[in-house]
Structure formats: C-alpha cells, structure tokens
C-alpha cells in the first residue's frame, strides 16, 4: 500500500487572500518576522499499489483531472 500526500496551493503570482488574512492575524498577535503566508489544502490518498512509479503516474493524473485546478493552483505529491 502507498500513501500519497497531495499539497495544493495557489500558484505564485496568484493573490492568496486567505494567506494575507492569516498574515495580518499573525501580525496582530505580535508574531514578527513573517514575510509571507500561503494557505493551501492537503489531500491524503491511500492507494492499493506498492509500485511508486505507478502511484505517481496515477496521482499526477488525478491532480490534473480533478484534484487541482491548474489554471490557478500548483500541486506537489509526496509518496510514503
């Protein structure tokens, strides 16, 4: 079995309003030295296969087809 952890975030250059709001909140709580905040989402998939190459191919297709909207989002896949 393989676990795939998919992290999805807005592309660099696409304004992340949630990140900005969190940044302001951190600032108001006096957490200083934070230059930028980006908020994303994580999707964890449990796959039948033990074949990491096959898993990567499949999860990449899932990301392109539905998990991410590649017009505005980037995704990173980590396999365990």
């Amino acid at each position, binding site marked *: 079995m393989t676990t795939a952890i998919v992290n999805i975030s807005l592309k660099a250059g696409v304004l992340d*309003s949630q990140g900005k*709001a969190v940044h302001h909140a951190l600032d108001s709580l006096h957490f200083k030295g934070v230059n930028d905040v980006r908020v994303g989402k994580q999707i964890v998939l449990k796959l039948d296969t033990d074949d990491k190459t096959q898993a990567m191919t499949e999860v990449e297709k899932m990301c392109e087809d539905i998990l991410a909207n590649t*017009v505005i989002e980037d995704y990173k896949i980590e396999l365990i």
Partner: protein
Amino acid sequence: MKVSILQFPGTNCEYDTQHAFEELGATTEIIWHKSETIPADTNLLVVAGGFSYGDYLRSGAIARFSPVMKAVTQYAKDGGKVLGICNGFQVLTEAGLLPGALKRNDNLHFISKYHHLKVINNDNIFLEKLDNGEVVNIPIAHHDGNFFIDSDGLQDLKANNQILLKYTDADGEVKNPNGSIDSIAGVCNKDKNVFGLMPHPERAMELLLGSDDGVKMLQGFLAN
C-alpha cells in the same frame, strides 16, 4: 424557444431561472444531472446557480464530472448556446468550456447585493439586446466570484472581444466587489456560444423587487 436547465445536487436557482424564462414566453425543462442526454429541441442550455456538490474541493469541480456534462460539452462543441449563471459559470470554467477560474472573493466574504454592470461587448448572441456601455443593475450572490486568468489569457479575451460584462458603479466607472481581474463579471468562449456570468439576471425580473434589468438580458438570451 426551449430552455433546458441543469440541476445538480445542491443547485438552488433552477426554479427561479425556470420562472424567469417562462415569464418571457419560453418553454422550459429541468434536467437532472444523471441524464446522459439533453432534449434535442433545446435552444438554450442553462447551468443554473447554487452550490453543486456543496462546493466541495472547489466550486464546480465535482459537478463537471456528472453524467450530463458529456452531453453539455458535445452540445457546446456543436455550436449549441450554453449559459452559466454563478455556480454555472464556475462549472463551465472547471469543464474547460470557458477560460479562466473563479477564486475566493478577495475580502473573503460571501457577497450578496445589487451591483451595477457595464456591457463591454454586445457583438454576440447573448447581449445584443443591450448597448455597449449600457449599465444594468443585477444582484450578485457568491463567495467564489473572483475571476482570474493569466496575462496572456487576458490579452486573448480582450483581442477576441470575449469580455462581456464588468463590475462598475451606476455611472459605468470600474467598481470591483470581489477582486476579479480587470473587474470582469462575465466572459464568453472564443466561438461566442458559451457565456458565463457571476451575477443573477434571473433575480432582476421585477421592479417591485429592486430591478427589472434582467428582463432585457434574458430576452437577449432567447433572441437567437
């Protein structure tokens, strides 16, 4: 004139849309998303507003894989006239039938209020009953209406006259409620037979309820 209106789990504007088009003399049919076909006599296919699949994952992301969407894509490819209102606009961008994407509003609020819109291009089968530069007052009600497209895409939209509506004030000066790039409220595809807009013209049918500016817009949708 036959208007077919799509209904997904979570769609909530299908009956308003039906009422509005019937008031204007159209016959209508509501199409459940499990249907693999759309009525052959359809003149206008409407993807109505709401919260299809609870907006899970992203607005419109799951609806675009419903069985009916294959027929919708084919209908659009064959030159059929497709209109997406609010969540319908989101579904059509997710399906790749319209360019760009709809992000969370910049102020992170759900915005529900009347807003003025300016007609940018009426050289299409949707807005020809309105004049270029004409300002209409139509409600918006969305959380994810912040239209985004990259700079090359935006240039294409401008070059092909695909920007149909922008958010403005009553005088037609840009006033942007949600952070949309270039204050865009509605775009069409390159072939100009698919149109998506975040505002709800079907909710602006009675002066008594605030505005009847939607009447002319909907009449335009029925004109061809």
